[in-house]
């Protein structure tokens, strides 16, 4: 192949002023309380159980709730990409999320050794109003609402047993809602205090009384099991921080305030207690608007420690996994760690809390902190002991705030490094050797945006919370100004290369969830949860774009989707839209029913060609994994899960179709691939408008899917862990050259903390048909651009903070003989090309470019012309209110 670097013109678009929404709340699933009934902890401990990671739930200021799943595959304890976005629950418009609560749906039957998955959880949120929302995670929508009956809800906390939800209200009351048996009912109201309840926390659960007796009984008659309905754990008290410079403690049984703890005050002002937490031993931790963090004894309600840890308000607080650390953060952006220092072993003196370390990883106010694994406020004797020899997962502190990115910090308590598990500590996000909070490296999870590029029309669509914006990229006037794609500094022109052509505000019920633009720029579609809106765009000769809504589209869809079964007027919201490359068909995945609708746009009125309901069917599942070539193939692709999980999954999931997450259409318009939450991928033939096949499911739903332009039957799927999977949909098998693809891909790609968000192929204009698999390339360099058509396409993989170029010559070049030298290629970490000896071209095969930051979208407009939509974080942060600042010695 040619040694000359291919020049690619790059449009570095920074005009998209997409405002990501600040993070307001973070939550992890609670860990189930240990069962007192089956106190065979010994046996349980013996079982070498795979460490699981719970879902990270992120609440945004615009009302959306993101669900982030762990990207590590089942047996991996480390994942560089950590948690990545799986799906978003669109918030009603307008709304916001202030607090989140996750509870276990059926805590009494949930096994205490398991980490609850999404289907086992109930999610509650409230956003400053008086309405409490419960979310239907499977259907992606609000399940039910409940009024607080006491004004605005300021705080919310579920008890450790997941049976009661406590709301702290504007009027100074704590209201309890019963969550028993998947219900949501008002249970009782506590006595009023004269303050808003800004934060709330439950005291540690008390094990069923007469425990020693029970234990004896257990010893005596081992097999006997108590089947009485009495709850195993009961709650004794809860504490709430108020706007009256004090914390109040209520007895749960009586509902009466037991005690009041008064914090520091400045004269004339009331201190707001923003955050409160309770440790397993009952110690209450509070953070207030003066920046003080106080530790209280829960029995006497006296202060034991006070730290002026922050220069400004403490907004959030979380307790470390073992209960020996506490983290606080707030307006001054510092995350401060408090450590419990145990007293001398021989002396009877108890330990004390120290303020140990602080880090600043956010540029603006930190609004929420969360810890994985979560802290269980049960006494140490009830806690599960790790089996000896098993790896010790360093806890991860998750923080988020106004600067929109989530930060993950390994936060191992320092004293563990001198204990006997020190050698087995594992950093789950693989950010380095150091795992203590002070020294570890942190990871950021960047924000994402929905941006769509119409290639032929040279339009860029960006979806906002409720609106759409359209820009046009102007042509590059002269070939001489084509600049090196790798170098962004050489754009000398003063001409404006872009223009804003359309701004739309839509009347929506929820925030927009999806939008798309057809390749020729004639069709624009956008949808919230309930309604899809289709627009026909017309461009006037002066270049003004006008959008006309196709009114007949909604009834058409209603008519189609109502067939799907429900009586009430069906929602016509679309979760995902794709247009065929010739812009004659639109494929829509419906938001709540997971039906794929193929719509013909070629005629005057859009007509529905067909709808596919394969995603609604659960019959194709076998152990949550599709067996390869389901009908004919016998070999299971992968089946990691044990049988016991299978049943519960089937049970809870029955009736609710999984959401369709990704769709892709092949460049020749023949194939459609769609994948859903359950990791199933179906292939449809759009020529015949028929279901074609099912692809073996992958460990995770893919982050991006694309068909290769040269060989439109080859489907690329990229997982959040950056693993790539290739499938030939025509033959229904993995191409032979792609079997060990992931082992040949440079490790550098896997080690990037940002996952691949998209794949772009340099489109070859006049493509000579390349026979599958056995064409050898000519070694002569091309004389004219025309002859580049003979070259294999360049693949650009991009994540939020990086992009890299992979040469796909191996698609045609990789002979079997080469493949046997796989180990060598792997060792050299390069993607094999025709000329192995040429080291310069080797190095060019993978080039990671990191100087574009926060890439929102990227695509080829035409061959050798790339558009990159970038939004520097500085631009986003500059729109925020100024961060808290305190001058320092020697600085002006």
């Amino acid at each position, binding site marked *: 192949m040619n040694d000359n670097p291919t020049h690619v013109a790059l449009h570095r678009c920074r005009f998209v002023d997409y405002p990501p929404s600040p993070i307001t709340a973070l939550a992890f699933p609670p860990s189930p309380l240990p069962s007192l009934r089956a106190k065979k902890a010994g046996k349980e401990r013996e079982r070498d159980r795979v460490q699981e990671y719970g879902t990270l739930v992120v609440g945004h200021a615009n009302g959306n709730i993101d669900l982030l799943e762990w990207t590590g595959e089942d047996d991996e304890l480390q994942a560089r990409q950590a948690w990545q976005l799986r799906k978003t629950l669109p918030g009603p418009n307008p709304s916001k999320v202030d607090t989140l609560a996750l509870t276990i749906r059926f805590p009494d039957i949930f096994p205490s050794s398991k980490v609850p998955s999404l289907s086992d959880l109930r999610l509650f949120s409230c956003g400053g109003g008086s309405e409490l929302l419960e979310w239907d995670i499977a259907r992606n929508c609000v399940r039910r609402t409940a009024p607080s009956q006491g004004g605005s809800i300021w705080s919310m906390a579920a008890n450790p047993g997941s049976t009661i939800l406590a709301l702290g209200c504007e009027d100074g009351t704590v209201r309890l809602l019963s969550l028993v048996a998947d219900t949501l009912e008002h249970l009782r109201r506590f006595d009023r205090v004269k303050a808003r309840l800004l934060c709330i926390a439950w005291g540690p659960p008390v094990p069923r009384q007469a425990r020693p007796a029970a234990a004896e009984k257990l010893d005596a008659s081992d097999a006997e099991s108590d089947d009485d309905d009495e709850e195993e754990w009961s709650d004794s008290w809860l504490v709430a921080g108020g706007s009256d410079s004090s914390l109040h403690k209520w007895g749960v049984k009586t509902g009466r305030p037991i005690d009041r703890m008064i914090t520091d005050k400045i004269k004339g002002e009331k201190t707001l207690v923003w955050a409160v937490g309770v440790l397993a031993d009952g110690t209450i931790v509070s953070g207030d608007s003066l920046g003080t963090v106080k530790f209280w004894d829960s029995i006497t309600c006296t202060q034991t*420690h006070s730290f*002026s*840890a922050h220069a400004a308000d403490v907004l959030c607080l979380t307790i470390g996994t073992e209960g020996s650390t506490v983290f606080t953060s707030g307006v001054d952006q510092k995350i401060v760690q408090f*450590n419990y220092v145990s007293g001398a072993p021989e002396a009877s003196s108890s330990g004390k809390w120290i303020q140990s370390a602080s880090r600043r990883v956010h540029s603006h106010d930190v609004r929420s902190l969360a810890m994985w694994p979560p802290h269980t406020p049960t006494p140490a004797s009830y806690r599960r002991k790790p089996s000896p020899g098993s790896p010790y997962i360093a806890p991860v502190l998750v923080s988020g705030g106004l600067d929109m990115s989530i930060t993950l910090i390994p936060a191992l308590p320092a004293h563990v490094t*001198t204990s006997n598990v020190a050698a087995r500590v594992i950093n789950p996000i693989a950010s380095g050797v*150091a795992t203590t909070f002070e020294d570890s490296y942190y990871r950021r999870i960047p924000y994402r945006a929905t941006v769509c590029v119409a290639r032929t029309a040279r339009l860029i669509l960006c979806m906002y919370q409720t609106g759409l914006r359209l820009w046009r990229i102007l042509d590059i006037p002269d070939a001489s100004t084509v600049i090196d794609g790798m170098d962004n500094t050489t754009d000398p022109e003063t001409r404006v290369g872009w223009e804003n052509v359309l701004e739309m505000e839509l009347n929506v019920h929820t925030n927009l969830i999806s939008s798309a633009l057809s390749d020729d720029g004639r069709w624009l579609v956008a949808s919230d949860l309930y309604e899809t809106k289709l627009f026909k765009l017309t461009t006037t000769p002066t270049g003004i774009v006008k959008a006309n809504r196709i009114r007949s589209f909604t009834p058409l869809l209603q008519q189609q989707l109502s067939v799907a079964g429900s009586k009430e007027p069906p929602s016509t919201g679309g979760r995902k839209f794709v247009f065929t490359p010739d812009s004659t068909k639109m494929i829509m995945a419906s938001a709540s029913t997971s039906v794929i609708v193929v719509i013909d746009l070629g005629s005057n009125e859009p007509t529905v060609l067909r709808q596919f309901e394969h995603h609604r069917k659960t019959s194709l599942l076998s152990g949550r994994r599709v067996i390869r070539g389901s009908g004919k193939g016998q070999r299971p692709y992968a089946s990691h899960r044990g049988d016991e999980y299978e049943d519960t999954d089937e049970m809870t999931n029955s009736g609710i179709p999984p959401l369709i997450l990704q769709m892709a259409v092949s460049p020749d318009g023949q194939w459609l691939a769609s994948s859903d939450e359950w990791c199933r991928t179906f292939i449809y033939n759009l020529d015949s408008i028929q279901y074609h096949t099912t692809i073996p499911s992958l460990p995770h739903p893919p982050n991006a899917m694309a068909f290769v332009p040269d060989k439109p039957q080859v489907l690329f799927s990229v997982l959040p862990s950056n693993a790539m999977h290739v499938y030939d949909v025509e033959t229904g098998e993995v191409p032979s050259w792609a079997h060990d693809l992931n082992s040949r891909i440079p490790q550098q790609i896997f080690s990037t903390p940002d996952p691949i968000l998209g794949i772009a192929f340099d489109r070859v204009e006049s493509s000579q048909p390349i026979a599958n698999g056995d064409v050898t390339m000519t070694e002569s360099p091309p004389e004219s651009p025309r002859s580049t058509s003979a070259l294999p396409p360049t693949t650009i993989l991009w994540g939020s903070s990086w992009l890299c170029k992979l040469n796909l010559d191996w698609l045609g070049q990789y002979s079997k003989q080469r493949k046997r030298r796989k180990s060598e290629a792997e060792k050299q970490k390069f993607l094999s090309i025709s000329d192995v000896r040429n080291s310069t071209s080797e190095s060019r095969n993978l080039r990671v470019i990191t100087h574009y930051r926060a890439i929102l979208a990227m695509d080829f407009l035409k061959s050798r012309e790339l558009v990159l939509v970038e939004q520097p974080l500085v631009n986003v942060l500059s729109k925020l209110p100024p961060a808290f600042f305190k001058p320092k010695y020697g*600085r002006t």
Partner: protein
Amino acid sequence: MAAAEVLNHTPLVVPQPKDVSISQIPRQSLPHQSGKRSKKYKEKRPTVSHHPQGSGSDEQRSGGSRKAASAPSRKWSWTSLTDTSVSSHPPIFTKDGSHFFSIAGSTIKIHSASSGKVVSMLPRSQDEGHTDTITSVTLGAHNSFQLFTASLDGTIKVWDFLEGILLRTIDLDQPIHHICTHEKIKDYIFVAAAKIKKSKISPAHRKDVQDESCVVLRVSLNPRESGGLTRTHKPPDILAIGKIKRTVGLALSASGERLIAISGRRSYVAQTAALKAGFMKFTSPESLTCLAVHPFEEYFATGDVKGVVRLWYCLNSNLVKVVGVEKKSQTSAFHWHAHAVSSVAFSTNGAYLLSGGEEAVLVIWQIHTGKREFVPRVGSPIKSVVVSPPKASEEEYLLELADATHAFVSSKTLKLSRVFARIKLAPSVPNAFPSSSSIPLAFHNLSETLVLPSSHASSLQTFSPSAFALVAELEVAPSNRVSRKDEKMLEPSRVERAVISSTGEWMATIDCREGDEYFRGEMYLKFWYWDKKNAFWILNTRIDRPHGLCKITSMSFSPGPSNIQLVTIGNDGNVKGWRIRTTKDKKGQEEISWVTRSSFGYKSDTPRHASWSPDGSLLAVVFGPSVVLYDPYTNVPRHVFVCHESQRLHEVHFIGMGGRFLATVGGTDLVVWNVMSRSVLWHVKNDRPYETLLPHPHRDAFMTIHSSHSTPAHAVVTIFHVRSPIRQMEHTLPFALRNVIWYPQSYSPANSESFSLVGLTHSYSVVLMGDDVNPQEKRSVPFKTLRKGQSVPRKSLFEEMFGVPVIPSESQQHSRDQITANPGPALPWRSSETASFFDAPSHLIPPIHTFFESLVDGFLTLRVADEGRQEELDVQEETSSKLSDHSGPVFANSADIATDSVLDSLVPVFREIAGI
């Protein structure tokens, strides 16, 4: 060092009774060793980059004589007025807090905590002291009247500091960096010693050794011999605990169960019960600089180079040794310091942590909450912080500053309560005086003080060599004391020159600050008037940019009291004259200020230097190769001497009282003219360029200074007589001088033939030198045996409320009675009853009008009218008041000056008293 004995002068400062030793007066009674032995306790070592030991003047002198081949060359006698550089080891208090020990090179000074005066020194003359820098001092574990000192010479010495005798010497043969003891571990001492190779190292290599690793040892103190033996013997039992990098701190935990050592980025913990197991390493994010152990809880504090104070809670944990895992301690970090922390200390009650560093701010941390309080602007970077022992009446924090000042901070008021300074000369910031700029140095004859640069470049200090005390500090240019902005040093405004008129009434200073990207440069000429009443300089006139922003190279006042003029010479090519202008304001009061009188140049040459003829009738200015004589009243050039020998003259001086000769230096040339005959008298070419020339004020002689041929760091002083180009005398000084001025010794006759100079060396020590300077006599240290149980008199309630009364309390009365019982009249006041009167609770005191008169009578003194005895009595009173005022201000500006003869006459009297 007590003030009065340093020079044969009457002190300005009132000394205090318990500091002035009784035994000091009969100086001869002490066994007076000569030569090598005595030099050890005289800290006359200059701070030049010399090997600490063996730099005594004797060796120098001998070295000089060896060299003397052509000219009559010998060592001048010289003495350094400044301390050696401040030890990084903090001073330590005696158990009762009445005294503290500070390390000065290879000696230990014992200071009184109340007055800051040096009451004694170790070693005494009879004992062999350390031969190298003392690195660590600690009190004995089983006997708190024993002092352990460790030194780089490889020995640990045990002293009885009450008697001032050396008890024993433990020779470890390795440079020792740290020692520590603990009350519960009486038989052992823990030592961090540099690890050296088998070969015995020569002192010259010792510097390299310091960078090597250290070994921590446990050394047995098992007294096989009874105490009091000074015989050196190898201790029987040495246990090596572990090898670590160069230690910066070594301590035992509060309970004595753990041994803590810090070095580099690690802290090491070992169990004293199981020392064989060795150290457990804990990592720190930054290099550690200092260590302190909590007084009763099991944790310790460190400071690091990034300014973080860290508490380590790793002493309790069950330490499991896991190989290959970096151990982390649970730590608590306090961050305020912007630069490295130089010292940390815990308060006695364990609730507060003190830290100090380059910022010159003492930070007091409340450990429990992390709240902090500050004692800002203590004057100079803090080197070490010590807390006075719990037995002292009030807890005080002793700061040792980088300029060798000891400052006490009261824990109640958090203010500087007492500051004991000697010459503050170590500049607080490393580049305060770049070698290109000049350093101010002047002598003020009215107050007999030296005007010196202070530790901050924008201040001057006045030091009285006779009283051996810092008199005052004068902030010439107001400046903030932030030392650095991030890592970049801030350019302070610095005083470059200071001259004082011959009358002593006026001082002119130049201070300048170089411009940077934010500010323009500044250059001020300031005139200060000597306020006789307050004995202080008062700013009279400030002239902005006297020569634009060009450097001023020379500045001098016209001699004589009348028609006083100042001439300045700048690099802008101008010679400017300044005069006094008298204006009357509306009320008719006269105001005087300085204005420009004239400004002139000569051709296009840049003037270099100007000097006045002794009678002020001629002004000689050097322009390039020529010297132009001006009539200062009319500015008419009278004559031009062109020097053909040298193209660039840089200094010219009139020689002799008559002003008949001119001497100029330029490069390696020295030319002497006869002004009358307008001819060159003689010319000498030297092998080294001349640095400066200084005329003798009375004789027709002058001296030149140039660097030594063999060692450029040494200065060679040559004395010439105008009559001949033959060197009269040549002296080699073991240091280079940055500025030197004439120092009129008042005890020597005015027309003395001898030379007497004061100079500033490159290492900022102030050196007195000359023919008559006799370091031997002046440096002798008053010895005083510390008495057991001697303590600071506790303040009575009255004293706490109203301050220290003039009337001494009973106990002092007794001591004074002892002194003054014999000679003549009894004390003129009897007030012990009145003083004790106030010790009673106030509600028991009768109404004040009932006893007012008798009370006031008690206070009033009755003068004895006997004229004949008056003089002696005055002296008596004065000395006695000197002796009685035990906590008065250190820099009292008392003007009473007794003459030498009076003191001499007193010597027999005191001898009588002392019964010797």
